[in-house]
């Protein structure tokens, strides 16, 4: 009991006595985790953006001219039976002409004198998430081509490939950079804590001379390290959130990317908590490590 009380008071006293180096440690931890966080936030948002873009990948299924209603619903049934298909929308021949005029007003004349239905009717197929890879879409197109009433199937292979590549690109990029940053974060925080304990070598030596056990000596330091990590992690979260809000405000003020505003987002709560937990683990682990490296030498 007295010992626990001592350890608690000791930890507080330690933090207070070394408030300068604890503060330095907290700030360093905060900034280091924030460095990693900035990158992670960037990655997080780009990945979300890519995800929402991938939702928009569409396959166009053009029908033969003058397909009967029965055949049209046959095609629809086939399409809806495909795993990869999320939703299907029908565009009649008349709608197709209207769309063309809307999209290319200056080329409108091209359709003049080509009869009532110069453009074929079509189904617009939206793909289910996870089925946007080039090969899967190819397979789908192949099967749909065989369905009676279908004249040809078109999809933007480039677009699919580009997005797929973008995501993969993002992923190796994130892996390489994330790895460097993660190693950096761990190194910097561990080093900061280790340095701030270096100054207290003498103190530890004296405690050992008096007959304190290793764990008795270590506990206040480890708690201190954990405290430093948690506060640093929390501070980094605040920094990130602040930076994020400034960024979003600038974006709003500039009036650009109105649409993007709804897409970019801060970390969800779980990841925010993870950031603080990371700080906690890093802090306690590095102080444990540094204290034990001081305790190991027998003297």
């Amino acid at each position, binding site marked *: 009991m007295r010992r626990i009380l001592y350890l608690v008071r000791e930890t507080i006293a330690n933090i207070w006595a070394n408030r300068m180096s604890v503060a330095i440690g907290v700030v360093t931890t905060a900034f280091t985790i924030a460095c990693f966080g900035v990158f992670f936030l960037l990655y997080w948002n780009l990945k979300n953006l890519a995800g929402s873009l991938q939702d928009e990948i569409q396959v166009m299924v053009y029908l033969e001219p003058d397909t009967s209603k029965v055949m049209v619903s046959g095609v629809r049934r086939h399409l809806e039976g495909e795993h990869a298909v999320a939703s299907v929308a029908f565009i009649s021949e008349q709608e197709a002409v209207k769309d063309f005029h809307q999209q290319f007003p200056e080329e409108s004349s091209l359709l003049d004198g080509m009869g009532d239905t110069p453009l074929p009717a079509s189904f617009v197929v939206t793909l289910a998430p996870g089925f946007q890879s080039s090969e899967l879409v190819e397979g789908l197109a192949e099967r749909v081509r065989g369905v009676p009433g279908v004249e040809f199937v078109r999809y933007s292979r480039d677009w699919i490939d580009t997005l797929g590549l973008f995501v993969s690109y993002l992923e190796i990029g994130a892996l390489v950079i994330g790895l460097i940053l993660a190693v950096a974060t761990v190194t910097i925080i561990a080093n900061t804590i280790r340095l701030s304990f270096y100054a207290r070598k003498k103190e530890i030596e004296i405690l050992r001379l008096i007959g304190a056990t*290793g764990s008795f000596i270590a506990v206040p330091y480890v708690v201190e390290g954990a405290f430093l990590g948690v506060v640093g992690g929390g501070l980094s979260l605040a920094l990130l959130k602040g930076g994020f809000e400034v960024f979003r405000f600038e974006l709003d003020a500039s009036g650009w990317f109105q649409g993007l505003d709804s897409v970019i987002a801060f970390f969800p709560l779980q990841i925010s908590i993870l950031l603080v937990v990371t700080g906690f683990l890093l802090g306690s682990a590095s102080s444990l490590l540094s204290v034990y490296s001081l305790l190991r030498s027998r003297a």
Partner: protein
Amino acid sequence: MIQFFQVTKYFDRYAALRDVTLRVDKGECVLLTGPSGAGKTTLLKLIFGAEVPDEGQILVQNRNIARLRASDVPYLRRTMGFVLQDFKLLPQKTVFENVALPLIIQGTAGLEVRRKVSEALKAVGLDHKRGSQAAGVSAGEQQRVCIARAIVNSPIILLADEPTGNLDTNLTMEIIELFKAIHARGTTVMLATHNRQVVEEMKGRIIRLHSGRVLSDQGVYSETNSLSCP
């Protein structure tokens, strides 16, 4: 209690202790003397395991110090009290906290800690400084804080390295009386000292070291054998 068998201790290539064999029984009072650099501090440090012998064996309370597991060292140290020549106080903590430390480490109850610390501080005449930072008190006061810390625990063995180097004659006399009282309770006492007053008054067994060797090991101080002594 304490036994040295042909102990040799090197620092770099310099032998601070050479082939020292001695035996101190329970309840003895031993005075270590010898010129500066003779190896007194080294001998005391070996006893509480702050240094490890390069050759020979050391038994303290029938345990081989050099072979002790690292996790057992703290428990052995708790049975000993020591006053180091360079004090080794925690500078940021108060006098009270420094003296209380050996008790807190053992988990002594709060009330008893306060009682024992007060007692120890009174014994060295420092009760009025209990709230001062250890770094802030004078050298002689620091030395007495060390003595208080060494005795607060009622140790089985008391080791003191030049415990009166910064004290005047009157205080030295008081500390001698204190050590005598502790010895009278059955504690084994070992003092390293240059101070003739201490050697004369303690009336203990005198071991004289020189260049790491035991020069003489004799009974209480007397005029006849004191001529070449400290």
